[in-house]
């Protein structure tokens, strides 16, 4: 039998891998499939991992299933881009539309801890107005959440992840001091800072989920730079090394290599548990509540695929909005070369940021964007040159000679939610025999206007910072959100503010797919804040008998 965690589950026999010690284990409470647990959670990333921790700490019995392997970063991760693509969700998917998404590296993950195992760690709060963007800014949809309450939960997550951030944040209402201090800027971040200062806008150190001081058994960041291919030192505060160890210590069970195929409902229309595939066979875990936390493609896919006679359009889909309004974020970049060496791959890639255009409303388009310094690893950079300029062979070789001099700025930009963008089921089947998702995406005019504005501005900023040979990378997108959005009205949303589905009261959705709009910042902090809030709300509802 193989001991490769990609093929053999590690979390079983009453123990789970100890992520902090090579080869070691921690004891884990285990449930049998026939135990009707309080909560079965599908997915263990920013949404599911966080919620598993909160619910277990509130005393509920919890089983969290993840389709991916259970890594020990200290021994399983290599400083090698190709090897580390094992962290991405690369199962078959059909990507279509006018601007089909490139799925894999920067928008998915298949591991215990989800895509936080290889996220860029950028941990930003939403601009308060975005929670009411329809009312206050005139576009998109209002969230059913109040920003002040979210401010409280942001704080909880920032403290749980010991976010390293600036002493004072230049934009938005005051926030408490970040638990850890900002990291030193690398040369790429200094280039962003110089550009901003020349353009007369504010910049700051990016609040980032990698340690700037020791924490328990985790070491501070060594600026190795392989962040987005998996941190091998545990400095990165992913769900795998934060929420999940806490969840296990509080009595939760994590099951790796457990792919959920269907949510089952009973004669009363309530969810009764989930069918999942593990160790070569389909099994059924009974549960009093089911939480779907598979992110913006797998969550709608699972709900749609769980259709039955009672719910022919899929679960929680009386509004018809499951799989609709998938909204990604723009991820365009401007690149240039500088005289001095930059070596931008040193240290976390996005150490400096400006949110200026998130908070400035004097623009001729809706939404906003932030931009950050960049640090592409060599293979990614060669791919970028190939895709953008068609370089190959000798020209690619000579271009790569300038790798140490590359400097770039990249946006995370708000795209508009559109009904036509979304997830449906295709005819084709994957390795589990489940219909694969078809993901359709098209940009609207507002998206294009935002992208044009950002590229123009970043070009000028790069020029001001002294870069030459500036060019635009125009086709990239990142983070997936929406597809099962939250709202105040069962007719126009899938879940309520507590992430509880309007249709089935013991079915919950807790991940980025509940976002009605996406804002111009990376979503992970908001996903975790929502999960913390949901955990607390579930405890309150349980106490008052409203569960």
């Amino acid at each position, binding site marked *: 039998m193989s001991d490769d965690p990609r093929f053999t589950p590690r979390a079983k026999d009453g123990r789970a891998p100890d992520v902090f010690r090579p080869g070691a284990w921690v004891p884990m409470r285990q449930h049998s499939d026939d135990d009707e647990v309080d909560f079965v959670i599908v997915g263990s990333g920013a949404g599911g991992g966080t919620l598993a921790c909160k619910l277990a700490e509130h005393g509920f019995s919890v089983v969290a299933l993840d389709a991916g392997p259970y890594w020990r970063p200290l021994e399983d991760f290599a400083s090698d881009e190709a090897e580390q693509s094992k962290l991405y969700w690369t199962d078959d998917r059909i990507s279509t539309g006018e601007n089909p998404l490139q799925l894999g590296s920067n928008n998915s993950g298949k591991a215990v801890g989800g895509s936080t195992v290889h996220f860029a760690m950028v941990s930003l709060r939403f601009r308060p107005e975005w929670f009411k963007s329809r009312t206050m800014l005139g576009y998109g949809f209002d969230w059913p959440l109040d920003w002040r309450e979210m401010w409280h939960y942001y704080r909880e997550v920032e403290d749980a992840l*010991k976010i390293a951030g*600036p*002493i004072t944040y230049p934009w938005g209402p005051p926030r408490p001091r970040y*638990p*850890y*201090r*900002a990291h*030193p*800027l690398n040369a790429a971040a*200094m280039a962003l*800072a*110089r550009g901003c*200062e020349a353009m007369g806008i504010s*910049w700051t*150190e990016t609040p980032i989920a990698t340690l*700037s*001081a*020791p*924490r*328990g058994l985790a*070491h*501070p960041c*060594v600026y190795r730079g392989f962040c987005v291919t998996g941190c091998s*030192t545990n*400095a990165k505060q992913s769900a795998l090394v934060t929420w999940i160890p806490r969840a296990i210590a509080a009595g939760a069970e994590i099951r790796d290599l457990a792919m959920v195929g269907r949510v089952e409902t009973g004669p009363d229309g309530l969810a009764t548990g989930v069918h999942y595939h593990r160790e070569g066979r389909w099994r059924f875990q009974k549960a009093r509540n089911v939480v779907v936390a598979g992110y913006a493609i797998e969550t709608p896919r699972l709900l749609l695929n769980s259709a039955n006679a009672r719910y022919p359009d899929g679960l929680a889909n009386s509004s018809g909005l499951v799989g609709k309004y998938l909204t990604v974020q723009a991820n365009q970049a401007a690149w240039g070369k500088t005289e001095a060496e930059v070596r931008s791959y040193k240290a976390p890639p996005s150490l400096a940021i400006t949110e200026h255009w998130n908070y400035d409303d004097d623009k001729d388009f809706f939404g906003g964007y932030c931009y950050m310094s960049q640090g592409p690893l060599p293979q990614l950079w060669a791919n970028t040159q190939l895709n953008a300029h068609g370089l190959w062979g000798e020209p690619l070789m000579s271009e790569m000679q300038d790798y140490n001099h590359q400097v770039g700025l990249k946006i995370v930009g708000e795209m508009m939610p559109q009904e036509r963008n979304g997830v449906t089921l295709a005819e084709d089947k994957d390795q589990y025999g489940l219909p694969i998702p078809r993901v359709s995406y098209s940009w609207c005019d507002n998206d294009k206007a935002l992208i044009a504005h950002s590229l123009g501005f970043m070009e000028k900023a790069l020029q001001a910072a002294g870069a030459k040979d500036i060019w635009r990378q125009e086709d990239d997108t990142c983070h997936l959100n929406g597809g099962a959005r939250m709202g105040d009205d069962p007719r126009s949303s899938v879940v309520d503010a507590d992430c509880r589905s309007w249709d089935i009261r013991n079915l919950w959705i807790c991940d980025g797919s509940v976002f009605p709009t996406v804002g111009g910042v990376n979503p992970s902090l908001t996903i975790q804040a929502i999960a913390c809030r949901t955990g607390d709300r579930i405890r309150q509802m349980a106490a008052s008998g409203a569960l």
Partner: protein
Amino acid sequence: MTTKQAGMGLLGSLAVGVLGAALLGRGRAAPPVRQRLLDILALPPPVARQVKRLHAPRLGDTPRGPLQRWLGIPPSPAIGRAARVRAARRLNRSAGLLAGSVLLDSALEHYRGSFRNPAMYTPLGVSALSLAASLHGKGDRHSGRHPFRSAIYAAAAVTGILGTGFHLYNIMRRPGGFAWQNLFYGAPLGAPMAISLAGLMGSAAEHVRDDRPGMAPRIFGLPAGRMLAAMSGAGILGTVGEAGLLHFRGAYHNPAMFLPVTMPPAASALLLNTALAPARRNRWITRWWLRLTALLGFAGVGFHAYGVQRNMGGWRNWSQNLLNGPPLPAPPSFTGLALAGLAALDLLEDEPDA
């Protein structure tokens, strides 16, 4: 976790402290343990070892308490040549500790900065010379100032001021200018003043040693004891600022990181009080607090050694983590300054109005 950390840090510190004490106490022909301990703690020598007094005890000396008697502290004697030399040699020792701390710290940090600017070699040379001058002074039982030592100490004092200018320039030319990011990670603003302090302490040693019959020792025209107390008090405050800034950078992740921003400020306040308050013979709280602060300087090395261990690869990866972790040579600055404060107390207790 935190308790375990603190415990390990404490054990390490004790080990290093004992080692440091052993090193400091070396150089004499194996005196008895109690005497050596008294010496380390900068106590006045026991009566038996005491050099012959030039003056008899004055009227009005306070009687000795039992603890004082056991420790062999004499009733405050009038100042004499031997007492001056003793105080001066203690100051040489303080200056030497500070210079040694600067030598190692600047070597480590400037190596880390790849000696990008040739001026970065300066503190190494100057602090090495100051260390040599201090060792020489420590061994010198003669009264009267030494011209070479005086010159070196003066150069050290000037170097610190110039270095602060260089460091400020480095901070200001980084994006953001005078901002937290650059105070944390640019050239450390407070560090060069440590070499100035070594220079000042050394200069003070030469002043105190300078023996003019019938005159009380003076520094810059002011009573030496009070002046020294003020200088070491201010020096401790400056060092607290530096430790406070860098421990804030480390987010005080270990509760022990609060020690150097709580204990030494109290020592500093006591010293400033000593400098300004009416003459008083028995300042035992100040004395003990300074001894604790001196010990904290050594303990800090132990804590920092544990901090190095907490970086990726720990001590196995020493070549990176010595540069990356908390600086081992930094905390003994507190020891040097606390010992200078103790020397000031000695002067004051020898002659209350010195």
